[in-house]
């Protein structure tokens, strides 16, 4: 089958694009579908109302589950994670750190639960090796002295940003598939049993845009219910649970450390390159747009986490973030963590539509499988008989996608050692050449990218200073290159600092309070970013 060439229709105000498949939502599920379809020879346009990984995909623990976490409440999910985790380690190794995981119980935890754990793992075929508490504490010296049981499992970590960038880059290379950031679906035009046109809004340039596609996939994660309703479908039913995570200044453990008990608050510590991530909490919410970590959630995570690793009570935290999990309804009997962690693929045929489907729920770990299922349906509807290749084909390494890997920047920088290639982000050693490569070639690059978009495609701003220095340096470098040419560059800079602050606000104390005061003295006291609008008059 011939891919339809996308074309922008110049006549009139509205740009019109055509494609075989429109994918709504640039989280891991959406990007996974984009690549899966490309491998079957199908052209797609992917849109996100913000940017890649703006939703749950950019705000999770980054844990590539071995499945052990789910053995007590959802054996199917556990098995799915085990299979998908193993597959990804083989095919997308450059996005994964195979650090291994521990499950640990401390005095006072339910001993029967702990004792039963290896048998449950065995049922899901998950490797589970008992460790003497003393040995576990040798492996992870910050573990509590009150450790009573420990097991080792094949948990790992995965970088969702790299994963998303690589999937988009591969789909673009294979099929010329397109990705449009800050493009929000606002309405659907139905014709009989089909969605004929999807109307979108380009939020950055404040322009309407229309997309005609043979098939439309709603991969909107927690927003999937709202998106389906825009299409007149009321068969996606979700509740929302907000989770908050904390990022420490240092990496406090080399393994993933899980609390060996029924899943609860603050019971997983996951390494993420040079930091550790502690979480999560779980709170019902109705609000998808302004989820921000609160001081209370920060305190809950620290209190619970420090039972496993007491030094979490004293640690320095550099940020906190919150995202929303969609909970598929009807829910199970238990709490939100027991609600089905599986995913749902809804074909909307009962709603009278033959070219629209929704895929939501699931996990980062199972994104490939979710993409496969959705792509199978889409391909069948398109009459494409090529089978799924993502379980066989390794994920390529894209040069412009490599800057998100923790600790990798300095390696590239030393290896390439171009004279005059200065380091702009000193915490994470991000050089000028990385910024060049990102604005020239990264998936989703466009005219006048903001600093947030650049930071999403690199490690810039992820270190202890949280971008307060490198934001200034990168901005002035972009002026220097002639990339920014007017005061909008400063507005990009301010937006970046405002955005980063959302994650800092709840963890400003100790050393971070000093850091924050210095940043504000610079940004507001000296540069006057707080009065930028007034200056522009």
């Amino acid at each position, binding site marked *: 089958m011939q891919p339809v060439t996308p074309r922008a229709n110049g006549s009139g105000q509205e740009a019109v694009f055509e494609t075989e498949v429109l994918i709504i939502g640039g989280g891991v599920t959406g990007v996974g579908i984009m690549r899966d379809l490309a491998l079957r020879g199908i052209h797609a346009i992917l849109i996100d109302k913000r940017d890649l990984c703006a939703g749950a995909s950019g705000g999770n623990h980054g844990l590539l589950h071995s499945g052990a976490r789910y053995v007590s409440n959802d054996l199917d999910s556990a098995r799915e994670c085990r299979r998908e985790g193993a597959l990804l380690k083989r095919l997308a190794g450059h996005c994964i750190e195979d650090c291994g995981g521990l499950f640990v119980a401390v005095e006072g935890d339910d001993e029967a639960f702990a004792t039963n754990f290896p048998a449950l793992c065995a049922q899901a075929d998950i490797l589970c090796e008992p460790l003497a508490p003393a040995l576990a504490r040798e492996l992870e010296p910050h573990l509590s002295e009150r450790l009573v049981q420990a097991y080792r499992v094949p948990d790992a970590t995965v970088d969702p940003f790299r994963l998303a960038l690589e999937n988009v880059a591969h789909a673009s290379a294979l099929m010329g598939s397109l990705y449009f950031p800050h493009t929000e679906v606002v309405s659907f035009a139905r014709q009989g049993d089909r969605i004929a046109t999807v109307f979108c809004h380009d939020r950055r340039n404040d322009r309407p845009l229309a997309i005609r596609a043979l098939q439309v996939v709603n991969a909107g994660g927690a927003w999937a219910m709202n998106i389906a309703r825009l299409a007149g479908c009321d068969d996606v039913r979700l509740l929302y649970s907000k989770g908050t995570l904390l990022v420490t200044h240092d990496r406090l453990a080399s393994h993933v450390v899980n609390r060996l008990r029924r899943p609860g608050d603050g019971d997983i510590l996951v390494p993420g390159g040079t930091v550790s991530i502690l979480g999560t909490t779980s709170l019902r919410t109705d609000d998808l747009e302004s989820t921000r970590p609160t001081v209370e959630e920060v305190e809950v995570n620290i209190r619970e986490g420090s039972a496993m690793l007491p030094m979490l009570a004293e640690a320095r935290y550099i940020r906190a973030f919150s995202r929303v999990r969609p909970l598929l309804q009807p829910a199970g009997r238990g709490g939100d963590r027991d609600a089905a962690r599986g995913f749902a693929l809804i074909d909307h045929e009962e709603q009278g539509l033959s070219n629209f489907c929704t895929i939501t729920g699931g996990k980062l770990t199972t994104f490939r499988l979710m993409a496969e299922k959705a792509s199978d349906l889409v391909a069948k509807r398109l009459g494409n008989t090529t089978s799924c290749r993502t379980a066989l084909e390794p994920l390529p390494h894209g040069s412009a996608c490599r800057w998100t890997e923790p600790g990798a920047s300095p390696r590239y920088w030393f290896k390439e050692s171009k004279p*005059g290639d200065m380091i702009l982000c000193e915490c994470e050693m991000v050089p000028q050449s990385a910024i060049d490569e990102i604005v020239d070639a990264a998936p989703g690059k466009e005219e006048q990218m903001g600093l947030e978009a650049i930071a999403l495609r690199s490690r810039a701003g992820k270190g202890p200073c949280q971008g307060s*220095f490198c934001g200034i340096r990168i*901005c002035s*470098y972009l002026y220097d290159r002639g990339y920014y040419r007017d005061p909008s560059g400063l507005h990009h800079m301010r937006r970046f600092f405002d955005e980063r602050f959302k994650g800092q606000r709840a963890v400003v104390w100790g050393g971070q309070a000093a850091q924050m005061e210095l940043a504000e*003295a*610079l940004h507001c006291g000296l540069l006057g970013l*707080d009065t930028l609008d007034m200056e522009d008059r």
Partner: protein
Amino acid sequence: MMPPTITLPEASMPEESRTITTELAIIGTGIAGFAAAVFALERKLTMAMAGSTGALAYTTGYLDLLGKLQGTAHAVDDPWQALEELRRSEPEHPLSRIAPAAIERAFTLFTDFLGREGLAYTPVGRNNLQIMTPVGTVKPTLSVPATMAAGPALMASGSPCVIVDFHGLKGFSGRQAVANLSQRWPQLETARLAFPGSRGGELYPEIAARSLQVPEIRQQLAEMLRQAAGTAPAVGLPALLGMHRPDLVLEDLQRLSGLTLFEVPTMPPAVPGIRLRELFARALPQHGVAIVPQQKVQHLRLDENGAHLTLGDNYGTIAIHAKAVILATGRFLSGGLEARRDTIREPLLDLPVAQPSGRSQWYEERYTDPRGHAIHRAGIVVDQAFRPLGGDGHPFHPRLFAAGIILAHQDWIRSRSGAGIAIASAYRAVDEAARLLGR
């Protein structure tokens, strides 16, 4: 004036204790601490001081008095008039509790001192200067180093001018400054130069500044500047025109190039902050002030005879006994205040800290909120004599005074009043300490 008595051990005898006995002890070597030293010298008090670099390293060299009033959109033009408004709207603000004449006198004494010691400042005037920042925004301030003085007038008149920057100097882009200033200053252009003698790679402002003390390097730079200026009569360039006597370096470069030149601050920590620090570190001991550099006071005990400070360095402990003490230890960045997970504390004496009710109240949701954040208004409350109040609402101790941005009820960041609060409150604290000491 009697120099303080200092007993120092032989250099070869570590772990010996040293004792300094003096009239006034100043804790903190930021602008408030140094300004206090300048004012105390004027009162002919003997003194000792201690502290590490603190926020001083980050100053641009601009001395702000009051650049913004809470809730107004405009930059302050006449800070003296704005002080009157402040007195009405924020009566508890430290600057509202000091007579304008005293503030003016404090600024004048302070900048005169700097001028005498080789770092000339513009005279303290009626109006704020509107001066450019490294990114090309404009900031109101009261007094700036003479090397930066030509900028505001050139901008106001819109004369042709070239902002020069250098290869390898991070965070300073002439193109950025021009892109952001071109509305108000259409005749502003930019040029990039290789710093004389640089071999590519990063250019460190401090090293460049020191190299400009050498006449041949100035000669080379002047020639480059002349070419870069084209027909423009004036050039602005990053603040690296020498470390000592930058006014002389500037003068020489102007003579050699035939141009009007001015410095623009680079991103801190930068040369102007180092100049100030080096000036005080050199000049104050020459005037008999005992400075214990880069050391924090570990203990402070107060009794009816005075203040007893304990410090330590690699050679052992140092004790300072003084009849009065000024606490000018700054805020979180300098360690004068500590933000714990649940509360804000003053670590040396555990003085009561006026503060919001809990951590969730410290910050607004939006970082660059023009109203500022409650955490900045936390601090030490003082009485009319700038003595910190204890838990009972009375002075904590009759011999203890406080000055600088550690004081409560001000947000120096939003109001652009960092140096102003430091200098003015130091003046008042010294005034009261001198009165106590019978001077």
